[in-house]
């Protein structure tokens, strides 16, 4: 077990920002940290790095308490949410900082800096002033800087948030490859669910200073621990449902007022016959037309880049979100027929 957090609490004055966090990150694992704004993600990373005073608990590395190990000896690389580039050093001076601290020689340093800058798409930026960089450029320099020290653990606080989608996707893939090769244990804070999937072996969801669920990405999306997690992960509609086996006995079928859908059942609690379903917009597909008078009516219609998002009024249920393909989406005021899409359906296991 590379990193272990045991009952870790951090207060700022009166305010409890982290309370009794327990978390384990095995060697080489990439853990994504998700949670609403202000829930304590950055504070958790800072505490792991040794930058915050713990009110209680421990940060362990390979089961040894890190309390006596000062920040600079932990060998943990960090990308701060707001970069924190050194304004008095140029790009190369920033990226090469960790190497300089280790006394790497000038040539070795220059090589490695060039390599890392190329990786983040900033080849040739060595002599640029960091205060003249665009937001995205600065963020990439911060990423390169943290990687330069070959840290045994990486703490990344939204390392790609200022990048455009294309670059972000590419860097996420590059980063994933790099992390896998380096077997660096990693915690990465991200607001981008796809990024969490691309990068992470497991995802931890925080709320109000606590870790409320840790799971593999797919399991997390399919089985959020409670309604709050489900809503945080995009389930805008929560409905009760009953589970039963499909006729062929291969699948588990969940049935709710909106219809039935096959859900991936991971054995265990198939027994529980009533559950709640969390439906993401993509979990409900709408097609125009429904003869039933009491059919859902489209109230709102928003274009997304590859689909249309609808808000429909479902009698006796209220408003639900659904999606439709761009070409054939029903219009506001239309009656629509809803079908459940297994990819957008989660089973909430607490209930």
């Amino acid at each position, binding site marked *: 077990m590379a990193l272990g957090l045991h009952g870790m609490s951090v207060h700022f004055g009166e305010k409890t920002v982290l309370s009794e966090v327990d978390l384990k990150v095995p060697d080489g694992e990439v853990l994504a940290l998700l949670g609403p704004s202000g829930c304590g993600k950055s504070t958790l990373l800072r505490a792991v790095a040794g930058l915050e005073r713990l009110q209680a608990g421990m940060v362990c590395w390979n089961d040894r308490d890190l309390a006596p190990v000062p920040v600079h000896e932990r060998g943990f690389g960090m990308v701060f949410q707001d970069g924190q580039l050194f304004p008095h050093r140029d790009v190369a001076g920033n990226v*090469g900082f960790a190497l300089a*601290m280790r006394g790497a020689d000038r040539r070795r340093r220059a090589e490695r800096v060039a390599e890392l800058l190329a990786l983040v798409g900033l080849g040739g930026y060595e002599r640029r002033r960091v205060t003249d960089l665009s937001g995205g450029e600065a963020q990439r320099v911060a990423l390169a800087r943290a990687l330069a020290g070959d840290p045994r653990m990486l703490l990344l606080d939204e390392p790609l948030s200022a990048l455009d989608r294309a670059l972000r996707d590419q860097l996420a893939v590059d980063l994933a490859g790099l992390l896998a090769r380096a077997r660096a244990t990693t915690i990465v804070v991200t607001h981008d669910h796809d990024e969490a999937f691309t990068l992470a072996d497991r995802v931890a969801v925080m709320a109000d200073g606590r870790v409320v669920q840790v799971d593999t990405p797919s399991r997390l999306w399919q089985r959020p621990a409670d309604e709050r997690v489900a809503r945080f992960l995009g389930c805008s509609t929560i409905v009760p449902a009953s589970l039963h086996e499909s006729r062929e006995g291969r699948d588990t079928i969940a049935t709710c007022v909106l219809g039935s859908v096959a859900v991936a059942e991971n054995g265990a609690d198939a027994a529980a016959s009533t559950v709640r379903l969390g439906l993401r917009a993509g979990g409900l597909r709408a097609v125009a037309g429904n003869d039933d008078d009491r059919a859902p009516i489209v109230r709102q219609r928003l274009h997304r880049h590859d689909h249309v998002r609808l808000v429909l009024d479902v009698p006796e249920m209220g408003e639900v979100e659904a999606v439709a393909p761009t070409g054939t989406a029903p219009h506001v005021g239309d009656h629509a027929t809803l079908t459940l899409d297994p990819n957008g359906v989660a089973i909430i296991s607490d209930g």
Partner: protein
Amino acid sequence: MIDPPNRVGGHRLFVAVAATSVLGFLAVFFAWPVVAIIGLGVGGDLLGTFAEPSTARLVGFTLGQAAASTVVALLAGMPLAFVLARVALPGKAVIRALVTVPFVLPTIVVGMAFRAVFDVDGAASSAVAIVLANAFFNVAVVARTVGGFWSHLDRRVEDSARTLGASGLRAFRSVTLPALAPAIGSATAVVFLFCSTSFGVVLVLGGGSLRTLETEIYLRTVELLDLSGAAALSLIQLSAVVTALGLASFARKRRESALRLRRADEAIRAPRGREWWVVGVAASVLAALLTPILGLLVRSVSGRNGWTFDGYRALSGTGADGTLEVSGWEAVSQSLRTAADATWIAMLLGLLASIVLVSVRRRSAEAMDAALMLPLGVSAVTIGFGYLVTLHLLPGDLRTSPLLVPFAQALVVTPLVIRTVLPVLRAIDPRLRDAAATLGAGPWRVRSAIDLPLALRSVCAAAGFGFVVALGEFGATSFLARPDTATLPVVIARLLSRPGESNLQMAYAACSLLMVVTALAVIAIESVRVRTHGVEEF
């Protein structure tokens, strides 16, 4: 509770040792002598002196003229600070040096220059002259302390104020000014202290009738040996200074915030719109500062019968009939040597103190900070006479040691170093240090790779200014320097106290020389450029 590990360890020991050394120096070379000399007077009629109505008037005038001078220096210094920090100008180093020059001018010379302009017959006009002369000396403090800090402020915070509807002036008032507050506070405290202990200016321009605590302490101590009266006044001076410092620290109760510091040259650009007005005001201030300077230069080459270089020629000698034990040039080299010693001692003490002040808890920092400022607020005479009655008790009679001069000067320079460096150190975002620590920098490396480079500009500025202060220091130096180790200000005073054209001529030439040496020293010290790999001069 578990401390973040980067804030403990050897570093804490270092802080303790540094604090002890600095406070130890302060105790031996300041507190002990002052307490001893005041102690000698405590037996006498302290209360009588307190109760005299003239004492209240003295306190009132002292604080009043100091406050007025400080306000004038601030008003005149801020536009210059703006220009030095923000305006693209060729040869700014020269302007910075020129602004600094008044600081070293012997007060008697400046006093005489102002006397020539002002009819100092009436008390009112003398008071105005005193205030202006005090301000003349101290515009440099404001322009440099505030300007140095200002040049590192991120202009984009002002930008955002502008987009929110603030005019340039409003943005300055509501965003820039609060950010500058620590530097302005520093400058205000220093200037106020200098002005409340203003001696030569008050004597010359007050014509003997306007008196301050400082002149009165001097007379009572030096001429009358009225130690009890002097002690009473010294106690009043001390408490006035402590009160003023306390009020100042109360006023800046609001925590200094971490700021986004930028490279000094980033915010520089051509002035726009109303900024031209500020530039205009700054130019007038500069002209006003330069007038006496040019006047002195002209005076140094004009004799009874037209232009002459006799004064400069005389510099290689020791004055008419050997008025001096040293030649002008020897005095220059003595001045430079003494000031260099004082500067390195003060830099050492000031930097150690600054590190301590940013490392310890706020409360103790405030107290130590104030203690380090006190030497500026105590009469040089009190300290000098204090040395007389204490320092022989140390091994090797320091009273007659040539080392004492740089020590005494360092006492004055150290608070200036702290006041220049500390605001910058406090403005460094602590998260930069965090970032460095996560990249493998231990507490020492953090200091050397983050704090030092970020504060380097102001460290150099402090060294430059400290050097200048030491060059110009007269009060303590004249007490302690031996005739064969006289510095330029001492030599100038000496020459002025003798009749004869050649002595006067040489005095003015020495004055000009002092100004030139000062300007060159400032330019040299501050143009120290550091550029190691990836670290730019800040």
